[in-house]
């Protein structure tokens, strides 16, 4: 029996809706005093528990706004639990948005280094893997152009290759494969399968059920921040698609 790599116990995540609807000065001061001026509480994840074992590939499915991305952020350590806890045993490569750390004015070469360092690699490590990244992203010709001149597909390619150049223990992937052409999508899927077979744990968010069924072996269905069903991928996905057809 493989050990748990991610343990989520009774997780509740608070989210700030930052509603800016204030009708009069009196209300303004009341909210100011109650410290609610910029804060409107919203529980994006409620009492959520899930254990993920090493080497599994999990998909998170659910309608927009159900809390999938928030859950990924909590696992990556970006958002702290309001209640409950998350234990993660291993390194995480987050792909919540490809190329989140790109600076539009820097060249692709400079961005590769910057983005790699943001993901927590050392400069030396980046120098060793630089060629591999460029090769995978297929951007040799544009290495010294500022990234603001890149197309969104090119940026996504570059972001994907920086994020997946290591074999992390956990790969987190949030709908990042929807951009890019079919050829690159195939290439990414192949790379992800390769990582899976080498023992990486995958957490995958996508609205493309076929892609989910192809890549993942488990799925969790989330609705309004609560876990509806978790288990084998076909079972959960079928139940989920059925609920959408009503």
């Amino acid at each position, binding site marked *: 029996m493989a050990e748990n790599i991610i343990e989520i116990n009774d997780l509740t995540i608070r989210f700030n809706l930052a509603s800016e609807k204030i009708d009069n000065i009196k209300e303004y001061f009341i909210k100011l005093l109650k410290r609610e001026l910029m804060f409107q509480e919203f529980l994006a994840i409620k009492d959520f528990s899930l254990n993920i074992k090493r080497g599994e590939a999990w998909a998170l499915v659910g309608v927009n706004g159900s809390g999938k991305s928030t859950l990924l952020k909590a696992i990556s350590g970006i958002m*702290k639990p309001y209640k409950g806890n998350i234990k993660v045993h291993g390194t995480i490569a987050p792909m919540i948005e490809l190329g989140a750390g790109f600076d539009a004015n820097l060249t692709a070469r400079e961005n590769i280094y910057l983005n790699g360092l943001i*993901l927590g690699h050392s400069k030396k490590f980046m120098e060793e893997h630089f060629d591999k990244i460029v090769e995978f992203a297929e951007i040799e010709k544009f290495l010294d152009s500022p990234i603001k001149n890149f197309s969104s597909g090119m940026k996504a390619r570059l972001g994907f290759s920086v994020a997946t150049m290591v074999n992390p223990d956990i790969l987190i992937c949030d709908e990042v494969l929807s951009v890019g052409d079919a050829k690159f999508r195939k290439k990414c899927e192949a790379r992800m399968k390769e990582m899976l077979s080498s023992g990486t744990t995958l957490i995958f968010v996508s609205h493309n059920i076929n892609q989910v069924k192809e890549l993942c072996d488990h799925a969790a269905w989330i609705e309004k921040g609560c876990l509806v069903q978790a288990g084998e991928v076909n079972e959960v996905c079928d139940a989920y698609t059925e609920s959408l057809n009503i």
Partner: protein
Amino acid sequence: MNIWKLRIDTFFHYTDLIKELVSRDLKLKYRRSFLGYLWSILNPLLIMIIMTMVFSRMFNRNIENYAVYLIIGRTLFDFMTNSTSQAMVSIRTNYALIKKVYIPKYVFPLAKVTSGMVDCVFSLGALLIVMIFTRTPLSPYFLLFPFVILQVYIFSCGLGFFLAQGVVFFRDLQYIYKAVTTAWMYLTPIFYPVEQLPEQLQWLVIHVNPLYAYIAQFRTLVLDRTFPEPWLVVAGCVWAVAMMLFGMITFKRSQDKFILYI
């Protein structure tokens, strides 16, 4: 004990990132400008010339080498205000990143103050040029300048941390700070001698304004060519450490809530 070891390890783990952020700032600052880094020297030089022309007649009886006197004050003061103002907005401008990748958040203000310091060291080139033109003799005491810069650096980091976390919850701070720095500039003897102030205000500026301690130390090193008075050094260091602690504590206390407000 263990948590401190972890924190220090994390810090060293991210030093590469801090270096890269600093070099990004410096690269982008003058990218596509014709004279590039030379502006770091030319800009303070031009401003110094203008201010010397305007002010030297007002105060020239009290200050023998007005040009050097002025440029030292301006260089240190600009370092402090520019780096803290940049650090203040650094959490907000990097919100896209903070929302998507886990990074210790203090790297952003820290990198901004560090690039401010590098810029300040570049602009000391302007000071050297002015010293050569005004035939100010160079002395070994000049070599002690990194010690003064370090004090300003630590002070600015602390202030930067405090402002960066404050502005996340209270945006108005940006505009308030602008007014504060203007007042601060006039209350710092940059282009006038401190003796010019009324007596009570003079006492306050000397004892309560940390920038006075730093600028006075630097001026003693360059213009009087001797060691600064010990109490000035002590005051400067105490201010720097106290501000650093204050900044770190306030930053640490609120950093987990950043994500909810940016």
